């Protein structure tokens, strides 16, 4: 009697809410999604293959271009993987470690701000966009003062950091961290209690902890389901084990909980930054590079190293043949790519309008999905 009139439509790749060139092949019955199939590959640049043809230090600027809104963490993952392969992880000076932590936490905040801005604007809340970009601009200014670039930072080197902090940088950082908690309160005042926001997010795209683990989801989408897995705590790298922070966990695993998780994560990142400032003041200035040879030629072997990028577990798998200065093979495990696989499971049964919220809540960057 009630026939299902299934229709196939394309969502994207030129849709503004897909955050890049993601195409979702939808089977819909009226407004209900029966199946959603992400079709990727529009931004494929062959980064992994490029890595095979470049000396290790030259790969670092290319890692910027994968997750282009969080390039510091991409740099960090790559340089740490190579350092682990060379066995020099312990030689990295304390100051360099702290600088890496500061840069990657700033990057986490800036990535989450961009996520919040676009996620909110997708759902229809225009105002947070402006306030998020205001604070993001301050972070980008900090990056610019440190390394000279705003987006594609190229701010880490194998064995340390390229430059010491410029004078006055820590004061700027302190000023930013002092103001940032109030800024998060401001975003929350616009969204957290807002009934329209809640209608659009509560109960949308629920993913249970078991399902999330089965799909290999990491980062805030996993923690939004209440699984306590943060690589900064689970497998501490750099000096995260000395820092005091908490991992926010969601309860219901819906879009709203993932939103709350990321908001809490921004506050925790700010807390880490505040702790880092006195610690970095206690280290000798200029001690930013380990004493390793200029030519990076790791011994034969393979390594997998993963870090907690703003979007989840970012891993680099490198095989070195011991003779050349190029990697024999480099594989990247990008968080966006894996998290995107959970989209069909999340979208089933929801309305097409909710798909926009779902793509936003997974927080994908297509540069990273396609590499």
């Amino acid at each position, binding site marked *: 009697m009630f026939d299902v009139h299934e229709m196939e439509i394309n969502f994207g790749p030129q849709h503004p809410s897909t955050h890049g060139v993601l195409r979702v092949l939808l089977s819909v019955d009226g407004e209900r999604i029966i199946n959603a199939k992400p079709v990727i590959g529009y931004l494929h640049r062959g980064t992994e293959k490029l890595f095979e043809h470049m000396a290790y*230090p030259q*790969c670092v*600027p290319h890692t910027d271009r994968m997750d282009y809104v969080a390039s510091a963490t991409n740099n960090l993952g790559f340089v740490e993987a190579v350092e682990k392969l060379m066995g020099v992880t312990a030689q990295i000076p304390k100051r360099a470690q702290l600088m890496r932590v500061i840069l990657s936490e700033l990057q986490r905040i800036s990535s989450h701000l961009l996520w919040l801005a676009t996620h909110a604007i997708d759902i229809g809340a225009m105002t947070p966009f402006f*306030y998020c970009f205001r604070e993001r601009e301050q972070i980008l200014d900090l990056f*610019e003062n440190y390394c000279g670039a705003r987006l594609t930072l190229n701010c880490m080197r194998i064995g340390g950091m*390229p430059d010491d902090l410029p004078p006055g940088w820590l004061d700027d950082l302190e000023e930013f961290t002092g103001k940032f908690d109030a800024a998060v309160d401001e975003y929350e005042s616009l969204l*957290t209690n807002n009934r329209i926001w809640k209608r659009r997010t509560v109960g949308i795209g629920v993913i249970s902890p078991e399902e999330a683990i089965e799909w290999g989801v990491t980062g805030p989408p996993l923690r939004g389901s209440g699984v306590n897995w943060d690589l900064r705590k689970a497998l501490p790298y750099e000096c995260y084990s000395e820092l005091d922070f908490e991992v926010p966990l969601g*309860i219901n695993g819906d879009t709203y909980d993932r939103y*709350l998780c990321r908001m809490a994560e921004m506050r925790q990142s700010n807390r880490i930054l505040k702790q880092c400032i006195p610690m970095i003041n206690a280290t000798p200035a200029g001690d930013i590079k380990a004493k390793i040879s200029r030519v990076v030629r790791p011994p034969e072997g393979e390594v997998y190293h993963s870090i907690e990028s703003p979007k989840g577990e970012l891993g680099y798998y490198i095989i070195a043949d011991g003779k050349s200065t190029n990697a024999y093979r480099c594989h990247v495990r990008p968080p966006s790519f894996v998290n995107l696989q959970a989209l069909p499971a999340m979208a089933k049964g929801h309305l097409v309008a909710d798909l926009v919220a779902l793509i936003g809540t997974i927080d994908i960057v297509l540069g990273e999905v396609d590499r």
Partner: protein
Amino acid sequence: MRVEHPKPRWTDRFLLLDLFEGLKTTFYELFQPKVTVRYPEERLEPADRFRGMFKFSYDRCIACKLCAQACPIDIIYIDVHDEQREVDGKMKKLKVLDRYDIDVKRCMFCALCEEACPTKPKSIWLTTKTYELASYDRNDLYFNMQELEYWDERPRYTGLPEENAPTQLEGQKMLTGGHE
């Protein structure tokens, strides 16, 4: 740590107070100073370390090609030849630079070339605080040795072009050639 869900308030049910909470924020922000910049009329000064357009110094360069080796995408083209020259009364073999070209349109401003340069101060550097590199022809962004050294003599952008004045735009992107 579990995230805290906001507690439901009885006022939310009929007074729409949750919406006024957001409106309060926007109203407060209405009276805050502006943070935006009206770009072509107002410009921000880039940071001291800002990586922008290159500058090259022929006099300092020792033609060692380290910058070309460091470049991840191989866009620095260097040709050298050896020359016997008299320096302080002695004959010395010197490397002389014939060609030093950078294909700036492909550059990703990673500054690895600057880092690799062994001379002090650097012979190639990106901290010129110049970022307005747009041009109407992609080949205008292929810079040879003279252009890399003297590009800053090109006329600066001085405001929006008048109507029907394409010649002005033409001149704006023109890179005055070198003089040795």
